[in-house]
């Protein structure tokens, strides 16, 4: 019969070990992936800075995501160096070229007085609520903490703002600003799912706040019950937003949001809808085009599609607004390829996505080399009187 001691000795014979001093050298000069294979409560009490947490029980299933390059050195540690010895052996079997185990483990690391990082950490309740995010390596605990610390401003609590605000709230975005001056109208409820029949006549920002707070008490809602204008846009943006989700229903607001986002250097996730079709893109100042690179000025009021004859399939904003939420989360997390420089078109009738490339225009009146627009412009209201928020 083989004992634990035999197994451990066997593992240690097959792998490479380093002591804390050499581990520190390796971290400083060798750029290893540092993997902490201890349990959650041990990790919470402190860990080596830059380490990824892969409990040993999940090692085989999660290590590829944490360390995709098998040729890159991997420094593994646990409390005293035993679990990490077994883990290093497993990595050898998985084809990793240089797994090394920290002999003496985290205990020895601390005894040497080397730096320890404390996790601000998610508490048990948050860990349960966001568990499906924690399982995604690209999000994980650090990503979730980032989301809880991020601030996203929604322009409009209408068709696009409804699904976007719901998903951003559910995802645990720490602060959601909502700008909307309207009240809930019966004709909104065919698509504006953040509101409900009992909220008819209630200001949309208040209705949205109630729904969001019921969904996720971790989210702080900042309500701006006002229409975005040249007078208030600087004040609202100065409240410090990481991302703007533009779900406005009119050209004057779209252009205000654009110009302000360029001047305040805040990325905008843009979405718009009409009948069965929608568009999404990301305008990130300095990295890609802005709305005016695409459309230097709005159409004259008499050519703007009449709101009265417009109409929209109720689920369409659900699709486009959810894509906006997805792009906003990617920007807040700093992951993936944001939709910068591409305009995605969706056609529900044909069930078809297509894509056109959009470029920064050096002659752009706002973000170009010689801007000709340097102050906000209040364009005339379109569909005045018949305006009905999409």
């Amino acid at each position, binding site marked *: 019969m083989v004992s634990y001691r035999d197994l451990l000795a066997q593992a240690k014979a097959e792998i490479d070990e380093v002591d804390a001093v050499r581990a520190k050298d390796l971290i400083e000069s060798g750029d290893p992936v540092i993997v902490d294979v201890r349990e959650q409560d041990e990790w919470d009490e402190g860990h080596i800075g830059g380490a990824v947490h892969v409990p040993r029980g999940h090692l085989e299933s999660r290590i590829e995501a944490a360390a995709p390059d098998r040729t890159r050195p991997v420094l593994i540690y646990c409390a005293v160096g035993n679990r990490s010895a077994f883990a290093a052996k497993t990595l050898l079997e998985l084809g990793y070229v240089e797994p090394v185990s920290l002999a003496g483990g985290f205990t020895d690391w601390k005894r040497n007085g080397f730096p320890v990082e404390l996790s601000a950490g998610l508490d048990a309740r948050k860990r349960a609520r966001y568990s499906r995010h924690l399982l995604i390596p690209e999000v994980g605990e650090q990503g979730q903490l980032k989301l809880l610390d991020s601030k996203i401003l929604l322009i409009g609590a209408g068709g696009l703002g409804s699904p976007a605000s719901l998903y951003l709230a559910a995802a645990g975005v720490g602060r959601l600003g909502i700008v909307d001056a309207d009240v809930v109208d019966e004709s909104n409820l065919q698509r504006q799912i953040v509101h409900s029949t009992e909220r008819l006549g209630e200001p949309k920002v208040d209705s949205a706040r109630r729904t969001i707070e019921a969904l996720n008490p971790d989210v702080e809602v900042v309500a701006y019950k006002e229409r975005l204008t040249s007078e208030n846009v600087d004040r609202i943006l100065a409240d410090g937003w990481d991302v703007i989700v533009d779900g406005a229903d009119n050209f004057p607001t*779209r252009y205000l949001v654009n110009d302000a986002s360029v001047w305040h250097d805040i990325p905008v996730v843009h*979405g*718009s809808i009409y009948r069965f079709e929608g568009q999404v893109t990301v305008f990130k100042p300095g990295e890609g085009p802005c709305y005016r690179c695409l459309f230097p000025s709005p159409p004259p009021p008499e050519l703007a599609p009449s709101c009265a004859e417009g109409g929209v399939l109720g689920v369409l904003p659900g699709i486009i607004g959810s894509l906006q939420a997805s792009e906003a989360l990617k920007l807040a997390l700093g992951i993936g390829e944001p939709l910068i420089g591409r305009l995605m078109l969706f056609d529900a009738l044909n069930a078809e996505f297509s894509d056109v490339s959009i470029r920064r225009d050096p002659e752009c009146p706002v973000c170009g080399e010689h801007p000709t627009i340097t102050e906000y412009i209040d364009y005339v209201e379109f569909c005045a009187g018949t305006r009905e928020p999409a």
Partner: protein
Amino acid sequence: MTRIRIPPTLREEVGGAREVPAEGETVRELLDDLMAQFPSLRRQLVEDDEIAPFVNVYVEGEDVRTREGLDTEVRPGSTVILLPAMAGG
């Protein structure tokens, strides 16, 4: 012949069609042919003999403004998309 994709906001001008065939070897010739078929489109697409600032024309997924504008060549079978600004939300 080239098929021009008509955006939902302009479909009423072309009798509801999603695509309209037109003849021409450049964007200018194509648009001239399109606007000859549907004269009410002119004010939606053209301003001062140029493509209006509130509309984009894409040939093979590229904005013709970043190529040769109205003189951009259009090969037979190319995908041409008209895309006016759309504000609904």
